[in-house]
């Protein structure tokens, strides 16, 4: 039944997935096992997104299913789900820009692919990024923007991080509709992503060989 749950989530059969999850939990199956299967299904969804057979409707519906099943499982759990993490990412939309759809998609995909993501939200001033980098000590920083008004703040944020002495231990990726190689150079970031999957590939590459975090 667990494999049917995985297929139902990955196949976008929401009603079937939810009723299966309920049956499993009520039948006494370990909620951690149910959540493990959900995570497995999310990996398949992530792969299909990468292969361009799935897009935002599928990604977002899978996210909703995961959330609903997690809520069902939570009251039955005695301990939290331990997830092996590939690395830590701090992410946010830079100061002056309040858009978050792109950033949220990247956050979700990074989470699906095993990263611990600290999302600082939108309109984030440089100092807030610096504080979070000090507190979280991430391997990767992601800066997001939708508007051209964010070009300068991106540059300023990276400058401030450099001045705070935090740049060397950090890989910085930027992304968003108007972002390209020219803005990568202009801002001083290490890389840019033309779409959300690039952020995952970059993050995987940068953390390869790192010891997985418990």
């Amino acid at each position, binding site marked *: 039944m667990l494999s049917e749950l995985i297929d139902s989530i990955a196949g976008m059969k929401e009603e079937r997935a939810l009723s299966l999850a309920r049956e499993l939990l009520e039948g006494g199956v370990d909620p951690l096992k149910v959540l493990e299967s959900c995570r497995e299904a999310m990996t398949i969804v992530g792969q299909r997104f990468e292969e361009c057979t799935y*897009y935002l409707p599928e990604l977002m*519906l899978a996210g909703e299913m995961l959330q609903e099943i997690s809520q069902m499982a939570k009251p039955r759990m005695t301990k939290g789900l331990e997830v092996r993490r590939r690395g830590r990412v701090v992410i946010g939309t830079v100061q002056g820009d309040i858009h978050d759809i792109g950033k949220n998609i990247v956050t979700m995909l990074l989470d699906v692919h095993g990263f611990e993501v600290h999302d600082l939200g939108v309109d984030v001033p440089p100092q807030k990024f610096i504080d979070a980098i000090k507190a979280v000590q991430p391997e990767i920083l992601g800066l997001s923007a939708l*508007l051209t008004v964010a070009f300068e703040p991106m540059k300023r944020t990276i400058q401030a991080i450099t001045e705070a002495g935090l740049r060397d231990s950090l890989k910085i990726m930027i992304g968003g509709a108007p972002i390209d190689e020219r803005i990568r150079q202009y801002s001083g970031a290490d890389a840019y992503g033309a779409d959300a999957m690039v952020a995952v590939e970059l993050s995987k590459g940068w953390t390869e060989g790192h010891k997985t975090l418990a």
Partner: protein
Amino acid sequence: MGKSPEELYQERAKRVWDVIALKEPDRVPFLPTFTFFPVNYAGLSCEEAMYDYDKIGAAYRKALLDLEPDMFNSPYLTLAIGPLLEILDYKLIRWPGHGVAPDKTYQFVEGEYMKAEEYDDFLFDPTDYMLHTYLPRVCGTLAPFSRLPNFPMIYYTRFVAGLTPFGEPEVGEAFEVLRRAGVESQRLVGKAVAFGQEMQALGFPAQYGAFAIAPFDYIGDFFRGTRGIMVDIYRRPEKLLALLDKVTRITIQSTLRSLQATSVPVVFIPLHKGIDGFMSLEHFKTFYWGSLRQLILALIDEGLTPCVFWEGHCESRLETIRDIPKGKAMYRFEQTDFAIAKEVLGDTVCMRGNVPASLLCTGSPDEVTAYCKQLIDVAGKGGGLIIDGAIGIPDEAKPENALAMARATRQYGCYG
């Protein structure tokens, strides 16, 4: 001797209309879309631009005279809206002094302003839904409208009960808000008309007579939000399709009505949620393109020219969106490869845009010139090309780059 403004007006209009009709013009037209670029160029703050109707007019005039585009777009109906937003206490936009710094442009706040279970209400009676539920939610000062009666129930002696909400002071205040908003809108339209006449006298035809939006984006941007509408594709596809159909008919009707007040037969339709990467081609055809194409065809049937702005990349959509009458529309593209687009669409529709925002904001005039020259070489053969920035002229574009774009079009865009 230089040409008179009237001669320039005719020459510029013919140039653009030749391109739309897929005839070779005298040269590639230059149609830069302005938003806040003229504001920065004139040294105004965005806050001044949104509130001072005369200052923003002067800023636009200066940019137009310096760049000499083939047509102008007006700042009044989409930019100088600060007073109106304030009167309405509008929730979908944050603007200078209201959640955004004075030197920053206004920004859209996406949300789930219509709940999933409200599809039936909207479908049953859109006007009732707007009055009782939507407007009170998105306009703080119209919140008392949620207490309005059911209008079909105001009949015979039942009008006594039906009319009582109109006696409430808060409801009265909300109507007063609407009246003030109406007066302000009239002022704006008056400014827009005067600006159009002034530009005509200077030799510049207008780009657009009306704005419309793709039905999917109307629901996705302003009602359900991205997550809401994307999930609705799976959870309630029939309801979504039914609402798309209803919204398509309302959009066609209101666009035709708004065009009665103008002689400019072009409708600008900016698109958001149907581009590459957002949904599969199958979903695009079913949920996005079907209703958008219906809108495009209805406008063309009425003798109008849709200017459809395909944001992001749209390479995977080109074969599909080719299915419109030849020489009757304009497709603006942001990042779509113009060489590929020219091949697929070249005999169907003219193309506009593509000069990257990053280049215009951070590059040099020489780089801009080289880019425009190459764009003309790749996509300008025999006509069919209009030069504009990928997203128009970015607000933060370097002025020397915008000027280089204008010069390069004149220098390298001549035919014959």
